[in-house]
């Protein structure tokens, strides 16, 4: 089993040292614009510009990026197809009877809507990837403290972050060992092997927790967790640029809200 988390890429990307607030505002802003946009124009612009930022500014491999997009877009297509068949309005494109009682119709209205939703998902995922690939989570803990998120919540997140990596390594080792002994030959064996791996992992989790308590006590744990580091330098010109970009996009979204590909806007 090979696992690759986007976090590891984020740790070494070219935009790593930029203040996390800038990157998050950009990413979240684009997500919000795409989700609220009533036409495909703004999402399209976001797709192009944010992908550009991800690939050329952050230095992410182009083919890797495409591969990443494939899975969510695949699901999106599936869901969109359902919608296209159901949400009909405007001129009907074609219809096909299924048995006696069901009429499968596709109309201009539903096609437009389907394409719109698809564009939103595309833009949303690209923006999410921008955040995931450029902003290491470790850089955001300091930000979380500033935003007055409760301490226990942040401590819990930091611990979870650390132990995700400890446990995934163990899981990989167990899985590979099982795989080498052909533990995933057929479905029944697969279920058995997977269950054993998960069970072993659960027991390891408990042991790790006990060790963790010992380790924390050895270092005089007094209820306080680690001090997050917030030394990233804020770049105000860049922040302004991002805000301007978002405002322009919002404007475009509002202005083109009536635009549709097929038929007449309604």
């Amino acid at each position, binding site marked *: 089993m090979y696992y690759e988390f986007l976090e590891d890429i984020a740790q070494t990307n070219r935009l790593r040292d930029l203040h996390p607030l800038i990157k998050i505002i950009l990413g979240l802003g684009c997500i919000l614009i795409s989700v609220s946009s009533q036409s495909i124009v703004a999402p399209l612009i976001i797709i192009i510009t944010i992908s550009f930022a991800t690939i050329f500014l952050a230095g992410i491999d182009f083919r890797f990026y495409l591969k990443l997009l494939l899975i969510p877009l695949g699901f999106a297509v599936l869901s969109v197809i359902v919608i296209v068949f159901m*949400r009909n309005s405007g001129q009907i494109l074609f219809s096909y009877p299924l048995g006696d009682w069901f009429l499968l119709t596709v109309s201009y209205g539903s096609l437009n809507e389907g394409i719109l939703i698809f564009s*939103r998902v595309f833009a*949303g995922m690209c923006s999410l990837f921008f955040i*995931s690939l450029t902003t290491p989570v470790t850089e955001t803990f300091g930000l979380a403290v500033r935003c007055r998120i409760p301490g226990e919540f942040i401590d819990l*997140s930091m611990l979870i972050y650390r132990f995700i990596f400890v446990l995934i390594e163990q899981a990989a080792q167990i899985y590979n060992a099982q795989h080498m002994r052909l533990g995933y030959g057929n479905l029944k064996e697969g279920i058995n092997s997977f269950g*054993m791996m*998960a069970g072993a*992992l659960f027991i390891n*989790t408990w042991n790790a927790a006990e060790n963790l308590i010992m380790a924390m006590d050895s270092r005089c744990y007094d209820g306080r967790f680690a001090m997050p580091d917030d030394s990233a330098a804020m770049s105000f010109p860049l922040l302004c640029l991002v805000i301007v970009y978002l405002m322009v996009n919002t404007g475009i979204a509002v202005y083109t809200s009536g635009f549709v590909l097929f038929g007449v806007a309604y």
Partner: protein
Amino acid sequence: MHIMEGFLPSPWWQIWWILALPCIIYGFYKLRSILKENRELLPLLGVAGGFIFVLSALKLPSVTGSCSHPTGTALSAITFGPWITAVLGFIVLLFQALFIAHGGITTLGANAMSMAIVGPVVGYYVYKGLDKINFNFFANVFIAAFLCDIVTYCVTSLELALAFPATAGGFVASFGAFLGVFALTQLPLAIIEGLVFVVIFKYIIMLKPELLIKLKVLSEEKMKKVQGEIEE
């Protein structure tokens, strides 16, 4: 089953956030009071959260060959209870969106509702209910895990149907359509996850039964009975 970023339009993604947040906040306050009593629980919960993430990041053996992941929250619900699971699940969902691109941030509310709140609540209460009437332990585990999965997928379909009601037949038709489309992958997945959980618990009981007693999943006498069943 995660709804991906951008799929839910306004006002729906906001609505689910507004619905999910109180549950998570309630879970958080419960967490806080438990931690005040017993600070040693923080490390355990941290590691447990890591476990939930890792479990849901692994690929289950599947029938349809599609990429399928366990929800991971059923185990947490049975061992820690639904409200703690809500908080842990929320954090795990956030990490899932950021680390492996499952789900999104606007859709975090909706995903939390299905995977971290409703699913685990149903799984937990079914487990406890069947446990009270001394239902067979392993069958109980299977049903709890299976239902947790099914309920999660039903709630997701509900969320999608509410956001995209059909023109002919409204919400109901839409709900039916989404349920139908995803049933192909979700039903076998739920069965497999149920079976997997049976194996998981069997394994833990064989190797470290004290754990389950400590976590109040099983009482000591029930443990002996279950261990006896395994021997047969």
